[in-house]
């Protein structure tokens, strides 16, 4: 009985985990999102040069707030956050988490549970392993195209190549280096997996497509940008 309670407590102990949240123009949601991460003592939120009060909102929370002078891109915010987290010696696991409330903290807990088994270096969230997300139709098509293209190019076989929810260990974090801080960073991360031969795995996650995220989230046109970025960068 005591072992069961102990192991349950251990499972809920996330003092070895850092959640990195890149934030751009999320003054409306960011405090709510960070406050929702109750069981996680280490939250590093990087304000990517937001013109609104995002940084002030971050500073009201328990999170460590880092701030870029100007907007350099989500990839850049992730790299800054991860580099900072690496200086904290107690951190073994790193989570990339979106600032707009689309990600689910339960998914994060499941992914950490899994990565603690030591069988892989990085776990990628996937919207397409389970039919739970309500993805807007056009976005789904653009996404599927990007997935096919990215899989062909990287040689990895993923069901979701552009998911912001990832969990990885220190070994991977130390190799996290991007040349492109823009929207192509997602496929650059996959490149790192491929080139350094990291063990990877996908797990189903639920993305909440609320009115808020729909309104400010990536439109179809931005999907075109992503595809274009993928093509141009490949040269």
């Amino acid at each position: 009985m005591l072992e069961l309670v102990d192991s349950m407590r251990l499972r809920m102990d996330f003092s070895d985990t850092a959640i990195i949240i890149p934030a751009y123009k999320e003054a409306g949601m960011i405090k709510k999102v960070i406050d929702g991460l109750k069981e996680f003592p280490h939250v590093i939120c990087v304000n990517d040069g937001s013109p609104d009060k995002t940084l002030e909102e971050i500073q009201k929370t328990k999170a460590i707030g880092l701030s870029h002078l100007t907007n350099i891109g989500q990839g850049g915010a992730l790299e800054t956050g991860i580099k900072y987290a690496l200086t904290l010696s107690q951190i073994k696991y790193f989570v990339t988490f979106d600032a707009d409330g689309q990600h689910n903290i339960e998914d994060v807990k499941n992914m950490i549970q899994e990565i603690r088994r030591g069988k892989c270096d990085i776990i990628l969230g996937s919207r397409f392993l389970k039919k739970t997300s309500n993805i807007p139709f056009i976005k789904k098509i653009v996404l599927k195209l990007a997935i096919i293209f990215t899989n062909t190019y990287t040689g990895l076989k993923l069901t979701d190549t552009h998911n912001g929810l990832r969990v990885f260990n220190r070994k991977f974090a130390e190799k996290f280096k991007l040349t492109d801080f823009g929207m192509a960073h997602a496929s650059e991360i996959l490149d790192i997996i491929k080139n350094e031969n990291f063990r990877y795995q996908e797990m189903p996650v639920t993305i909440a497509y609320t009115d808020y995220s729909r309104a400010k989230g990536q439109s179809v046109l931005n999907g075109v940008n992503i595809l274009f970025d993928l093509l141009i960068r490949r040269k």
Partner: protein
Amino acid sequence: MPIKIILIAVLIFIFFYFTKFSQSTAAKAWKRIIFLLIIAFGITTIIYPSLINLLANFLGVGRGTDLLLYLLFVSFIFMTLTFYLKINILNDKLNKTISKISLIEGNKESGKKKK
């Protein structure tokens, strides 16, 4: 017509140049050499305008003006790509600097808090 071969070769060269060599010291040197050659060519053509017509006919182009136009076209592509690359490189340097600054500030903050 020899001009066709030359133009195609130049375009292919531009493609490989920008994907591989553009940042080398050799590239820098050659750019300066070509710059000097262009100045020399320009001055010569101004003094002897009929020369460009001779050159054009030799290469299979109708008029000297047409040849100048082709040269202008190629130069334009070259210049545009050069600037595009340069801007990207500068952008990367800037981004890396911004990231580093935020890390330094972050470390200062946490250093203060610990005290």
